């Protein structure tokens, strides 16, 4: 997993977001075992306490669960992952619409533009 921790947001939040993105994209599969906090911290070059905090947050959301003896796992609850995905994509689209709105484009124009661009992309233009 490549970590990109360059924003001004709290580090633990950036970790949470990137693990969420990994779950959505399938880099982490439902039921996967996660490496230890220490290993993940070393990999991401962050403080172990910060990684621990990110894990606690993901556990609170139910995306990760801890088994006392066996370690930490990605949830097998596919419905939860689907919800996460939807929330994530909604966020991206909202940001996008806000930006295009500032450029003076309304949603219908955007949708027809998207269709056009997607069609060209499929044709390999």
């Amino acid at each position, binding site marked *: 997993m490549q970590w990109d*921790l360059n924003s*001004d*947001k*709290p*580090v*633990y*939040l950036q970790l949470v977001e990137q693990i969420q993105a990994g779950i959505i994209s399938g880099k982490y599969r439902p039921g996967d075992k996660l490496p230890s906090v*220490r290993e993940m*911290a*070393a990999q*991401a*070059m*962050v*403080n*172990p*306490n*910060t990684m621990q*905090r990110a894990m606690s947050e993901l556990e609170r959301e139910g995306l990760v669960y801890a088994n006392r003896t066996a370690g930490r796992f990605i949830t097998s609850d596919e419905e939860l992952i689907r919800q996460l995905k939807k929330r994530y994509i909604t966020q991206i689209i909202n940001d996008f619409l806000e930006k295009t709105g500032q450029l003076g484009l309304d949603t219908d124009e955007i949708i027809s533009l998207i269709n056009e661009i997607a069609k060209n992309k499929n044709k390999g233009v």
Partner: protein
Amino acid sequence: MSVILECNSLTKKFGSVTALNNINLNLERGKIIGLLGPNGSGKTTLIKLINGLLVPTSGTIRIAGKAPGVESKKIVSYLPERTYLPDWLKVSQAIDFFKDFYEDFDVNKAYDMLKRLNLDPSKTLKSLSKGTKEKIQLILVMSRNADLYCLDEPIGGVDPAARDYILNTIITNYNENATVIISTHLISDIENVLDEAIFIKEGNLHLHSSVDEIREKEGKSIDALFREVFRC
């Protein structure tokens, strides 16, 4: 949580110059803490006071409840700004030296780290590059099972890859009983590794806070805040 370092009204003057002014500071165990400030702000003075190399002008300093001295030195592992090892020493002899000197020195750990760096213990320090020498010194310091590690500018003289190695060494050796103090002005390189940041400004304690709290409250990185606080 238990306190590893306690400073009360700690003041250090050199003649008419006040290097540290009335510092009150409590550090808990299990943290990695950045001691941050521009050149000449008092970082090294504080670290030398912790290690008993300087004596306070007034105020007190306690390490796990002890005044700096023989007992405190048993539990404090100190990486000074400059190396004190003679350069005719072989790496293996430096390890033996540390083993004889410190009860808590873990020889296997030291050799493990050397192996990971592909370093030959039979080499003399003189034959090594500056960066490699710094790595050796860090390996020696981090191979102790100390309660408090004081690292004075551990990443100043090394390339970015070696910097990553050093930070990795600090993270992987971290344990919840020990606290690591890292003094540096290369903040962006280390801020993700820190629990807490301490800003020292002209000998005064300007700020002591959790790193993520600063990011939450100020909406900026420690590096950005530092540039603001210490704008020249």
